[in-house]
């Protein structure tokens, strides 16, 4: 294998060396970040056999660093994994974590780790990434000073930040603003300190920066520009940041996020050529100066440029993987095109936006109050686009970055570049997903081949699997294409109704329909209905109109659970769950449950939702059991209904030494308010009294976690079959504010979700948390007042279904084994196990 060369003309030589030994047998990847993961994935696709080993210093598998700030908004590190955990074993890729390669022998291609492990390979790929730049300030050794790069950094910031009121971020660039968002999400009053006279000076022009500044300040973040930091001050820990002019900004923590430095130390130690100002020199195939060694990602220096974004890193990974297996896909160089959401503000930057002089012309669209600023710059002599800034409206992003890549001249009337709606020329094929380099034509092909939703298009094209910022663009493309093709995505509920549940809800609501026969006559396709449309109709009527869920005529719409207000079990008996709001119960009431269970010989079990389930009740026993429960003050627990089940809570500030709010009190109020309301699927709530989260609110449809200032509201989480972490909808709400946001959220869900769709699935259907936020917080549809009023009506209409049923002889007469025989059903038999009664037939 190749000798170590230091001249500048190594590439032709290397090619000849490679052809003499084209088949790689063991590829060692040094570094386990995002680009390394992409490299492994690509290489495995290209070569199913080659041995692949990845060594990384972090204690975990490669994860999505770009979305690190989401850890503050409720995601867990495993949510950010680049490849699912089993991928490595399934694809025969050895992943070594927690070890750092310290040097590589360029002659033998043997790497040595800091644990002394020797790894020999015949190809080595350096994907060592970069390290945060730590400004050389006095005091950076004080506790409370952090950098922002890894999951571990986030964990440290999070635990320190929990007791911090004020924090400072040094750096007003891309990474600095990301870090600032993280602090804001922690509830820390945040100040961003930037050396330059404006934010994101590299990516934005002056006017763009100014608009971004305004939007960020509006979110309550302090920004200090033109500010030189001098020292971190404090007795034994960080207490503030001293500026060059002597002023001290007080803060309990300082996070430095002022740029990155390529990690080229392994290359240096091993004699691989690095640039004058650092980073490993590579050619278009990502080959370094040493044959058999490649470098990709943020540690690589390509044509004098270090690329700090993930999209060019991925292109490099692909270039290297292709080169290693002997095919060719050179790195195209990269037009810096960045699209991101900074603290809720959409910002994009393409190419060089600060090009200025006589040979440049520009076009500007400005609407500062609407938060929109767009500017494109091109060279007059050859009409080539130089760069563009977009703030607030990123619609032209795809077209502009494609234009910059192609080098085509800007149109004779440049206004076409920014004027929506842009007519699609026959030849126009913009890149929709920049991370994966997916053009619109590829997405259209996938749609035509049957991928009719985002998930399917993602799978077919990889679009939207990187940073995710093109989700809306992709969804829009799908909708438009399907409409053009006249393809209707079938949202029919069943054979009897060609409507979705949401559509039927609207029809029933606006037509004041309370009866299935009328619904069928006006909107259905005729027939008796079925197990899909009948319960949906019953559920919609219950959500819309008061009156008993099983009043005459509506009873037959319901499944047996709803029809008999209990949960049917395998032997035809039912289980009974009295409501135990927030899981709080007096010993006296516990005694009532014990007495009833004893009297009717019911199998008794504690549920997962802080309540008690009583099994083995015969149909005809249900009213007798409920008579005793209702007389003792119990209400229906609605365990049988698509409705609020439980509001799990901890004891909160009442008892717990860590509790900061009265979680049980709020849980009681919430359960009281929403009990019995029918929804498209069951709803589970929880309230935790502090950040320790003992009530597991982040796995619920609605979860509240106490903060010093109030409550953080999480929504759309799920345990069960398809676990999903809840997402933060709003922060530091008072109890009353929380309740009105939950009102809107639930009513919006009830109105728009498909049948049997949990909130965790529905949120994806409606376009994610940002879309939800627009509707229920910003009132983008102007329906918030109506949602609250509708919820209020439902709350006012509540009556305990069992209490009402016990007073209605027409309903009660349905609870009997036989219409003509008072004896219990002889087919139901029990045996005893562990002191309780269970269905016969289980014992063998």
């Amino acid at each position, binding site marked *: 294998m190749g000798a170590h060369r230091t001249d500048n003309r190594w590439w032709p030589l290397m090619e000849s060396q490679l052809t003499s030994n084209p088949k790689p047998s063991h590829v060692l990847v040094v570094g386990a970040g995002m680009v390394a993961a992409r490299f492994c994935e690509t290489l495995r696709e290209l070569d199913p056999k080659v041995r692949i080993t990845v060594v990384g210093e972090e204690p975990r598998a490669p994860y999505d660093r770009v979305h690190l700030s989401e850890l503050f908004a409720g995601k867990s590190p495993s949510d950010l994994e680049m490849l699912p955990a089993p991928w490595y074993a399934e694809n025969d890729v050895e992943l070594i974590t927690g070890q750092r390669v310290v040097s590589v022998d360029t002659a033998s291609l043997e790497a040595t780790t800091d644990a002394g492990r020797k790894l020999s390979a015949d190809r080595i790929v350096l994907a060592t990434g970069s390290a945060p730049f730590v400004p050389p300030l006095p005091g950076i050794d004080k506790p409370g000073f952090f950098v922002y790069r890894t999951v571990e950094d986030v964990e440290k910031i999070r635990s320190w930040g929990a007791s911090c009121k004020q924090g400072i971020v040094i750096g007003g660039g891309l990474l600095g603003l990301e870090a600032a968002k993280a602090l804001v999400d922690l509830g820390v009053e945040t100040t961003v300190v930037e050396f330059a006279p404006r934010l994101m000076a590299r990516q934005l022009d002056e006017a763009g920066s100014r608009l971004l500044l305004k939007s960020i300040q509006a979110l309550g973040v302090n920004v200090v520009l033109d500010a030189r930091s001098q020292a971190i001050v404090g007795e034994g820990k960080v207490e503030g940041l001293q500026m060059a002019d002597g002023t001290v900004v007080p803060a309990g923590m300082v996070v430095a996020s002022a740029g990155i430095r390529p990690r080229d130390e392994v290359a240096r130690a091993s004699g691989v050529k690095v640039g004058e100002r650092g980073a490993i020199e590579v050619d278009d195939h990502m080959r370094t100066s040493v044959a058999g060694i490649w470098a990709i990602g943020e540690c690589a220096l390509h044509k004098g440029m270090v690329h700090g974004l993930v999209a060019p890193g991925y292109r490099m990974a692909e270039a290297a993987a292709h080169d290693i297996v002997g095919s060719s896909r050179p790195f195209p160089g990269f037009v810096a095109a960045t699209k991101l959401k900074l603290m809720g503000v959409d910002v994009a930057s393409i190419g060089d936006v600060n090009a200025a002089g006589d040979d440049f012309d520009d076009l500007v669209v400005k609407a500062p109050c609407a938060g929109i600023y767009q500017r494109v710059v091109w060279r007059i002599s050859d009409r080539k686009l130089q760069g563009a800034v977009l703030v607030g409206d990123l619609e032209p992003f795809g077209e502009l970055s494609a234009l910059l890549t192609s080098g085509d001249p800007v149109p004779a009337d440049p206004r076409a570049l920014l004027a929506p709606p842009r007519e699609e020329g026959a030849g126009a094929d913009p890149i929709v997903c920049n991370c994966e380099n997916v053009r619109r034509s590829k997405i259209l092909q996938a749609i035509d081949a049957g991928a009719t939703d985002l998930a399917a298009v993602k799978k077919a094209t990889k679009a939207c699997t990187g940073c995710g910022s093109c989700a809306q663009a992709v969804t829009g493309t799908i909708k438009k294409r399907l409409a053009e093709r006249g393809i209707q995505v079938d949202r029919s509920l069943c054979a009897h109704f060609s409507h979705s549940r949401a559509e039927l809800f609207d029809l029933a609501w606006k037509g004041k329909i309370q009866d299935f026969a009328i619904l069928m006559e006006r909107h259905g396709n005729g027939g008796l209905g079925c197990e899909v449309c009948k319960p949906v109709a019953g559920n919609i009527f219950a959500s819309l109109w008061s009156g008993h869920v099983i009043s005459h005529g509506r009873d037959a719409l319901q499944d047996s659970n709803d029809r008999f207000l209990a949960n049917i079990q395998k032997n*035809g008996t039912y289980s009974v769950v009295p409501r135990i709001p927030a899981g709080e119960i007096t010993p006296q009431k516990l005694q009532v449950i014990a007495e009833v269970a004893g009297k009717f010989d019911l199998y008794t079990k504690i549920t997962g939702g802080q309540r008690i389930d009583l099994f083995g009740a015969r149909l005809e026993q249900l009213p007798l059991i409920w008579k005793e429960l209702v007389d003792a003050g119990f209400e229906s627990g609605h365990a049988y209904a698509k409705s609020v089940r439980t509001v799990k809570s901890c004891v909160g500030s009442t008892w717990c030494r860590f509790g900061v709010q009265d979680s049980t009190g709020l849980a009681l109020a919430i359960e009281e308010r929403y009990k019995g309301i029918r929804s498209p699927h069951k709803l589970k709530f929880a309230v935790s009294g502090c950040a320790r989260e003992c009530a597991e609110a982040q796995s619920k449809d609605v979860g509240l976690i106490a903060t010093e200032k109030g409550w953080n509201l999480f929504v759309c989480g799920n345990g069960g079959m398809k676990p999903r972490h809840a997402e933060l909808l709003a922060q530091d709400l008072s109890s009353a504010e929380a309740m009105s946001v939950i009102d809107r959220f639930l009513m919006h869900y009830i109105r728009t979700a498909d049948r049997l769709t949990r909130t965790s699935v529905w949120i994806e259907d409606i376009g994610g948390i940002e879309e939800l936020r627009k509707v229920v917080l910003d009132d983008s549809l102007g329906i918030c007042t109506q949602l609250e009023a509708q919820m209020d009506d439902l709350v006012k209409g509540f009556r305990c279904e069992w209490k009402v049923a016990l007073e209605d002889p027409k309903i009660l007469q349905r609870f009997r084994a036989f219409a003509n025989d008072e004896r219990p059903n002889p087919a139901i038999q029990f045996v005893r196990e562990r002191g309780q009664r269970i269905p016969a037939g289980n014992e063998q």
Partner: protein
Amino acid sequence: MIEATTSMNSTWVDAGAIDDLSIGAGTCVMVEGKQVAVFRVDQTTFRAIQNQCPHRGAAVMHQAIVADRAGEPVALCPLHKRAYHLVHGGCLEEPGAKLQVYSAVQDSGRILVGLADRA
């Protein structure tokens, strides 16, 4: 409830007042030791089938949802939603599984169920 004999030559059992049964709802009667589930399919049509499901033997069929499958009337078992044809008793999902069917008629505002298989 009352047992009644009609002009037909088998025993008919009174399964209650028509008006007490919603359209699509069912009830259960004991007829000579056999459990029979009887449904009001529409305003004037009544159907009767064996109450125990052949799948698990649970006595639950009278709590079924009445539905149509491409126009054919079926009862959907509340345990696993298997569909049984209300006229011939066959299971739509599992050929071979079959429920006994019985006669059900209305007479003077009452629902009557008879043991004789429907012709």
